């Protein structure tokens, strides 16, 4: 054979191979046996294949021969492979059923008690931006959350009160790590706000009950704030406000970013211009410095650092009922630091790991009625969690936490000091089980141990969600929650133990095209609440002898769609709460739990004015208080609380925002309760003074300028 013949034969053989076409046909169905159009069918490793038609059928020719693998792929469905043998001209493929994959996007989410602010996930109630653009909140995260169902506005406190629980029952977390003293230090009846700027968070998870086994030491609510992952660009942000100013510099490249922020505020100039109802000796002032850094790791992990230190103070006179003169002098100076670092990574094999460490340090120097007092609180938290997705249907989370908690109080004149040192260990696990896209079960267990209280406990938690229609779903959650008493009590009697609460929540949520509707009903029981004799400043005979309950109904509607350029939400909460705790002698409605709570938030954008106008109206039916001139406890109620706030944000240039806001526009004189003289006067009457607002209105003007090479940047987030 000469080379030419050989080549000829070679080509001939190849040609035959190339033209030995097999025609394949078959049909693709979904789980229920319905035709599945759009599925991709392919001979593995070759270009030959087809897409299934409307009736699920497919047909194509291939030149491949012998044993081959037929692959069925469709986004959102599990890939299937089928071994075939191509040695006939025509091959009928048996029916193939593709099974839909359950993903976060297409499956039901547990919404009982849970409200999220996020840009990424579905079933969110708020966007992160909403928190800063809610009129009346004045850039305070908690101020914005007070417009959501399940919360009560307690204007002389400022903290978050959830469903008939007091403010200590809300656990606040940043990136899963507990924050000690999350609110600015204050004195009685002077409202406070959260220390952290909403600008540093990309999402918020707010639960009004029935929450995950990951959170503990909170009887009523968990508020979890998640910091931003990675800043995109180098920029400077300058803010000039009627109450102070600040500057923030961010440096960023593809893998790391770092921001350094410094702020100073002083209400003195403002209070000179606008008359105040409080008798200030020194208006509140303070400074803070904050560092945040993010580093993407080579192997896909992310490390974050957040550190903040701040100091501030105030001095004021608080008039006392039945006494003449300016009353009691209070001088407060506070130093606070918070630092945390965390690392997270997800691996291809279905494991996701998280580790973090945080330290909160708070020091208050107080002079109350010429008695100097020093309070120190140091809370350290270490946490490690591992999540394993066994399949798209079952996932597991396990975690462990350790807390070191040191607290001390010192009476400077008497040189008396009392303190405690606590170590707490927790273990938790939680399992999600998707029975289908429409039904998910979650079961969790949380075990805790307190060295100081010498207690060990276990809390079971169960929830489920079921999708009942295309846009509607119901969720049910129940669980048990433990919480150790507040520091002021534990330092007096370290042996007092946990208070306990049980939640039962039924939720309905409807979500479609920018409309969210929620209705939720709940029952919460309280056991082993702390009771004492005497008053809050000097309690004695502390015991776990209290109990109580809270039950009620929430309704929430948000609509971003129906009215052009307008976004509004309406919340209504009914809470029926009674408890015997603190110095109460009978089971009564507490002063911080108004029965009817309503809020309306409207934001309207006017393109021609380049402005966003906002308004918030808040209402509740009044606060209970005890009038010693009448018999019984919590025997009276204040008039209703009402406040209307307006705000105007103007964007004349892409990098400049001018923000003007007025809180309580009509200057309504809201009253949060009354304080009474400890002894009756000569006529036998206990004299009283109302507990009111610092001023009828609060006005705010701020100018926010972003400096960056990219002119589109603005710091709307800083409002």
């Amino acid at each position, binding site marked *: 054979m000469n080379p030419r013949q050989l080549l000829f034969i070679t080509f001939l053989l190849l040609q035959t191979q190339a033209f030995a076409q097999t025609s394949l046909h078959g049909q693709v169905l979904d789980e229920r046996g319905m035709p599945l159009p*759009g599925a991709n069918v*392919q001979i593995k490793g070759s*270009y030959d294949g*087809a897409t299934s038609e409307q009736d699920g059928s497919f047909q194509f020719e291939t030149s491949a021969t012998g044993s081959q693998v037929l692959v069925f*792929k469709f986004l959102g469905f599990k890939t299937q492979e089928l071994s075939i043998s191509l040695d006939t001209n025509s091959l009928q493929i048996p029916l193939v059923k593709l099974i839909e994959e359950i993903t976060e996007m297409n499956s039901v989410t547990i919404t009982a008690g849970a409200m999220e602010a996020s840009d990424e996930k579905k079933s969110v109630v708020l966007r992160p*931006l909403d928190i800063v653009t809610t009129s009346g909140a004045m850039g305070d995260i908690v101020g914005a959350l007070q417009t959501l169902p399940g919360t009560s506005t307690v204007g002389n406190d400022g903290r978050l009160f959830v469903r008939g629980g007091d403010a200590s029952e809300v656990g606040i977390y940043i990136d899963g790590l507990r924050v000690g003293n999350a609110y600015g230090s204050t004195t009685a009846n002077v409202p406070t706000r959260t220390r952290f700027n909403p600008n540093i968070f990309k999402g918020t998870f707010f639960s009004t009950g029935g929450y995950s086994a990951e959170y503990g030491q909170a009887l009523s609510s968990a508020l979890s704030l998640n910091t931003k992952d990675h800043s995109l660009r180098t920029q400077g942000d300058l803010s000039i406000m009627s109450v102070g100013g600040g500057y923030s510099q961010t440096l960023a490249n593809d893998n790391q970013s770092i921001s350094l922020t410094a702020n100073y505020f002083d209400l003195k100039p403002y209070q000179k211009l606008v008359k105040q109802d409080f008798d200030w000796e020194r208006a509140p002032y303070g400074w803070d410095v904050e560092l945040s850094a993010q580093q993407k790791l080579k192997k896909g992990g992310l490390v974050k650092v957040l550190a903040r230190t701040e100091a501030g103070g105030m001095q004021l006179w608080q008039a006392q009922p039945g006494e003449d003169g300016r009353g009691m002098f209070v001088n407060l100076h506070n130093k606070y630091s918070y630092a945390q670092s965390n690392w997270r990574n997800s691996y291809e094999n279905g494991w996701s790991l998280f580790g973090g460490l945080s330290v909160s340090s708070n020091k208050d120097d107080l002079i109350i009625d010429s008695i100097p007092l020093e309070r120190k609180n140091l809370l350290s938290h270490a946490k490690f969690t591992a999540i394993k997705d066994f399949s798209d249907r079952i996932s597991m989370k396990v975690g462990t936490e350790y807390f070191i908690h040191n607290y001390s109080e010192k009476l400077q004149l008497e040189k008396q000091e009392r303190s405690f040192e606590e170590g707490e260990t927790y273990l938790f696990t939680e399992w999600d089980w998707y029975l289908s896209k429409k039904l998910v079960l979650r079961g969790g267990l949380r075990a805790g141990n307190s060295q100081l209280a010498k207690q060990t406990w276990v809390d079971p938690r169960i929830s489920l969600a079921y999708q009942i229609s295309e846009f509607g779903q119901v969720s049910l959650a129940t669980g048990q929650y433990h919480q150790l008493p507040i520091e002021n009590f534990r330092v007096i009697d370290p042996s007092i133990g946990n208070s306990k609460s049980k939640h039962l929540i039924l939720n309905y949520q409807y979500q479609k095209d920018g409309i969210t509707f929620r209705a939720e009903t709940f029952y919460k029981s309280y056991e082993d609440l702390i009771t004492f004799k005497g008053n809050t400043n000097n309690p004695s005979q502390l015991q776990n002898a209290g109990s109580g309950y809270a039950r009620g109904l929430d309704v929430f509607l948000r609509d*971003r769609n129906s009215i052009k350029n307008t976004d509004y939400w309406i919340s209504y909460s009914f809470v029926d709460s009674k408890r015997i705790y603190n110095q109460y002698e009978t089971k009564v409605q507490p002063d911080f739990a108004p029965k009817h709570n309503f809020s309306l938030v409207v934001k309207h954008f006017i393109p021609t004015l380049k402005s966003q106008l906002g308004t918030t109206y808040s209402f509740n039916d009044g606060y209970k208080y005890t009038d010693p001139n009448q018999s019984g406890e919590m025997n009276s109620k204040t008039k209703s609380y009402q406040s209307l706030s307006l705000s105007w944000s103007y964007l004349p240039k892409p990098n400049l925002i001018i923000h003007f806001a007025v809180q309580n526009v009509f200057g309504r004189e809201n009253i949060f309760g009354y304080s009474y003289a400890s002894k009756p006067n000569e006529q036998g009457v206990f004299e009283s003074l109302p507990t009111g607002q610092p001023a009828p209105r609060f006005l705010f003007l701020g100018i926010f300028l972003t400096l960056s090479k*990219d002119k589109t940047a603005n710091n709307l987030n800083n409002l």
Partner: protein
Amino acid sequence: MKKYILTLALSLVWIAFAQASDPAFIAAMQKQLDAKKTIATYEQSQTVTNGFLRIADASETEWLPYYYAALLKTEAAFRFEIDKDKSLDEALELVKKADKIAPGNSEITALNGYILMGKISLDPAGRGQTMSPQAMQLFGKAIDLDRENPRAVTLMSQMELGMAQFFGTGPEKACGMARMSLELYTKEEAKITDEYILPTWGKTVAEQVTAKCD
């Protein structure tokens, strides 16, 4: 005999090489690119997308099939009455796959920004704040990676135009960029041959921007 065997071996090697390399891949791509031009319904778009995905599966080192599949998913979100967010999210996933094969590719980076523009358009108030800077940054990066990429410049000009309209400033910057991209398209057209399978789209977008400039 040795000679014959060598010839046989060589011819086989040549044939094997020819089969596995460019011509087959290019032919398969061209078939889908031709089909892409005639898409009129979502079903057709899905069929062509699947075609590119089959090529992607068979030619694991090529970024272009994933790129076009992502582009089709993006265009489908703009053109057809479907779950637009879902389609764009799928496009993002495909862009990620393309990026893994060819990191630091200007076309992939620009497409990533284009998908974000689509996401923004579905919820400007909610997403604009976080996603606009991301999109702008991606276009900037795409231009840095390849100064001759007309799509990166065009998409950037489109964002600039939107911004200028919103803030009532002049469209000069957007116009300048769009004109520059038109020059780049002319340059690109000179390179196009029968075997050209790299991206060429976007000229009409640039023309739409320049139309607003007079």
